[in-house]
């Protein structure tokens, strides 16, 4: 009787949507495109950790948290990677992580959501709105994908001699694919 009561109680205090998904990192990616001398150059982040906590039936009540190791940046060239870790860019030694935490998820059509939250990069926190598409995978799990737009000046990424947006553009086109397994 006593164990049944505790199970009942636990089910009451544990919200129904609290379902942490396992992330298949080998098939997940966070990438970006930034224009250099008007040339779109693709890059990405090799290491990141995702906490995805949501019920597929009610993703609106869920939560996403993404932590990116900025030192794991891939800019397409070794000297670009080294430069991006320096203080003028991400200052990876002092700010090793970029963090996004969702605050609100709202439905925007079948399988489509808009996630709003806070993005913190280089110690600067800015609101960010991310369209999110959830696609069921076979045999199981979900693909969470989307694109978002950032301005590097909002986070003081690439200041000093790099400030000129005609050399490295201010606009960053971000995109992600996260494979969530039960």
């Amino acid at each position, binding site marked *: 009787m006593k164990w049944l009561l505790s199970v009942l109680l636990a089910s009451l205090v544990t919200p129904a949507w609290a379902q942490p998904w396992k992330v298949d990192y080998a098939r997940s990616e966070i990438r970006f495109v930034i224009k*250099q*001398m*008007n040339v*779109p150059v*693709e890059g990405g982040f090799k290491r990141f950790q995702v906490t995805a906590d949501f019920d597929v039936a009610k993703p609106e009540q869920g939560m996403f948290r993404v932590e990116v190791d900025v030192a794991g940046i891939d800019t*397409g060239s070794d*000297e*670009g990677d080294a430069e991006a870790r320096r203080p003028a860019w991400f200052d990876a030694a002092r700010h090793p992580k970029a963090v996004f935490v969702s605050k609100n998820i709202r439905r925007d059509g079948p399988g489509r959501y808009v996630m709003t939250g806070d993005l913190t990069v280089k110690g600067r926190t800015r609101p960010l709105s991310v369209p999110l598409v959830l696609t069921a995978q076979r045999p199981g799990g979900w693909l969470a994908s989307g694109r978002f737009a950032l301005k590097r000046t909002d986070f003081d990424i690439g200041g000093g*001699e790099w400030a000129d947006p005609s050399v*490295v553009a201010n606009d960053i086109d971000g995109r992600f694919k996260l494979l969530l397994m039960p």
Partner: protein
Amino acid sequence: MRDRYGWTLISLHWLTLLLILAAYTLGTLLQDMPLSPTKLKLYAWHKWIGMLVLFLLPLRTLLRWRDGFDHRRDLRPWEASLSGGVHAALYVLMLLVPLFGWLHSSAAGFPVVWFGVLPLPDLVGKDKVLAEVFKELHGSAVNLLVMLVALHAAAAVYHHYFRRDGVLARMLPWLRRRT
């Protein structure tokens, strides 16, 4: 009978020389330059100039074919073959040097947007190993081109000062022919 190439071809000859010198100077500077906004700008100019050489080449070839003047007409047979061979090699290298550069750029994942306006298609997909291969080929072709340009210029100087047959004056019509 006309004793030189048409004005357009003469202009294209000297323009190409200037472009090749500029691209070569930039390429040499870029090799030892640490990453900076200036480097990105110079890299862009290096590629834009290289692509200009590449795209001028078919025009030059067509005009030269239509021009009909044969610069080898006063040469001995062995000289004519050598001159024809060097000229053919120069044209092949003016094709290969920028083409390998373009291939390297594509394979490295940095597309070329000509003069920052016209996006050129990627010739190959992003591939690190392939990028290194094309980089090496670009460099080797450049070295060969530089040697042939030097040989070509040496021949012109030889004709001007030793043979005094007006070969250089044909390409530099404002130069007084030495007699």
